């Protein structure tokens, strides 16, 4: 079993801080790109790998736009805070698991929501 380190990437931290400080642009710059639990379970390389695998298995979800649309349920989060977005995503992650809306990527048992987040992350990293 390959050992994973639990280091938050500088890039992701930068993303989060940038979002906090600047505001409304969703694309490339929001909590959607930050799978909260998985960021604490694996490293940047692992997230990128998971994201790539998800995109390989789901051809319609190759772009940031398509992934953001799926994650936001089509709603406009551009004026929402990071906390609101994270709450939205947490609820979806939990619902995914409750409803068995699950994917297994490289052995990881993930919710579809966080797999999409990994996919987003892999597009910008």
């Amino acid at each position: 079993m390959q050992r994973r380190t639990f280091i938050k990437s500088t890039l992701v931290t930068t993303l989060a801080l940038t979002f906090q400080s600047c505001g409304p642009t969703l694309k490339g710059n929001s909590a959607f790109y930050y799978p909260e639990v998985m960021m604490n379970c694996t490293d940047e390389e692992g997230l990128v790998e998971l994201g790539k695998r998800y995109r390989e298995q789901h051809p319609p979800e190759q772009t940031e736009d398509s992934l953001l649309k799926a994650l936001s349920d089509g709603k406009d989060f551009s004026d929402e805070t990071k906390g609101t977005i994270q709450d939205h995503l947490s609820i979806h992650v939990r619902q995914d698991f409750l409803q068995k809306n699950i994917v297994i990527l490289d052995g990881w048992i993930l919710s579809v929501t966080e797999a999409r987040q990994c996919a987003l992350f892999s597009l910008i990293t």
Partner: protein
Amino acid sequence: MHTDARQIDNNSIIEGDVCIIGAGAAGISFALQWLNKPHKVLLLEGGGFEPEQAMQDLYKGKSTGQRYYPLHSSRLHFFGGTTGHWAGFCADFDPLDFKERSWVPNSGWPIERATLDPFYERAHKIIELGPYRYDLEYWQQQDPSRKHLPFDNDILWNKVWQFSPPTRFGTKYKDTIVNASNIHLYTYANATELVLDDNDHSIRHVVVKNLAGKTHTVRARYYILACCSIQNARLLLSSNTRAKHGIGNDHDQVGRYFMEHLEINSGDLFFKDEIKLPLYLWDPFVTRMRAEIAFTEQVQQREQLLNGTISLTPYTGQDPEVYIDTFSEDAIGRVKEWDEYEKKPNKRKPEDPDAFKHYNLFTRLEQSPNPNSRITLDTEKDAMGMPRVSLHWDLLALEKNTIRKMYHILGQQMGISGLGRVRVMEWLRDEKDDVWPPIVGGGWHHMGTTRMHNDPKKGVVDANCKVHGIDNLFAAGASCFSTAAAVNPTMTLIALTLRLSDHVSTRFTNDSAIDL
């Protein structure tokens, strides 16, 4: 009383009321129930008081099918038997283990789980366990730090294990047995053949031999086979002078349904924050209880799972050991290692465990009762002329699919909890792959080779562990198990043996009433 069967005259005739063949956990537990009773009990042990290479060599055999441990080192051939190297894990079977399950072919026992309760409690004393309590709430009251993971109770539960010190029967009970006036222990008395009476429905005597070249005859009213699952089957199959296919084997059931516990590293659990999990940890010879994650009866039924558990071990930087790769053929060396470890004065006391983010996940799973997983006789013979055995260890897709689903369920529950994520190992990832990896091992738990069933066409012993068709022959121990359950077998085989002992005692009482 003790006699070294190498030292008595050749062709001695040894007589008693009950003859117990084998002095391991089952044989000694049985004998202990007869202390100071008005019966002469013969306890036959093939080895001596210390493990010896020549005795272990008698246990050599072959294995085919799934890779298995060497047969001569996964069990011990001396007074005390395989308790000489067991780790002390004890838990009770679940009620579901005794029921017929539509998704588990050949499941179901002719007795219920509740039947064993009084015997489990008695077994506790023999293997030096704490109170007969396996409800988690009790243990959490004793130590509130033993918090469980927050899963849905309708899906996952926490199965409690207690740990025997572990009781080494050869050390703990040697003096008791040797000093008992009505228990006659014969060491170096290897049973090599059961001889039928002319009616073919009872045992007339047992032939015992040793490497000193002596042969003796042992006669008793009742005979108890208690020499471990492989040896019980071997003895029945080898006793084929009058019964062509072996005693109790009219329907080709002896030796079949060999079951193990599949024990295998299966995945990893990553918590988003460090967490202390004292409830789930095990420190050898220190921990007295712990829990493993188990699956409720309703989930097993709904998902068509075998019964199994998942245990957690902190990841400390090295991938976990694969026991079947590291298992030594040197049984005697391993016994010595355990002895030395147990004697260490600086063994740690239970202390506040460290917090970890990463835990290895280990599965223990019942093997499905499979008639093709079996013990047969080999053409090669041992030094006393007895045919050796061949084990064909046969695993099914049901077992692998169960493990896969278990981890999906655990992964789902971890996801719901928000605490972390599960990652399964590579050998579980392809849902179409039924092939077993070479890393799968067992717990050295040998079960089922003289399984219990009311129908002689489907089992070897009846609900009282009496061999079908033979009036005075019983099997004791895990060879009688109809299913393997998720847990280590020792406590249950002792409980079943105590029940058998009570039954045989009742037989004597009834015999006396008839004689009157």
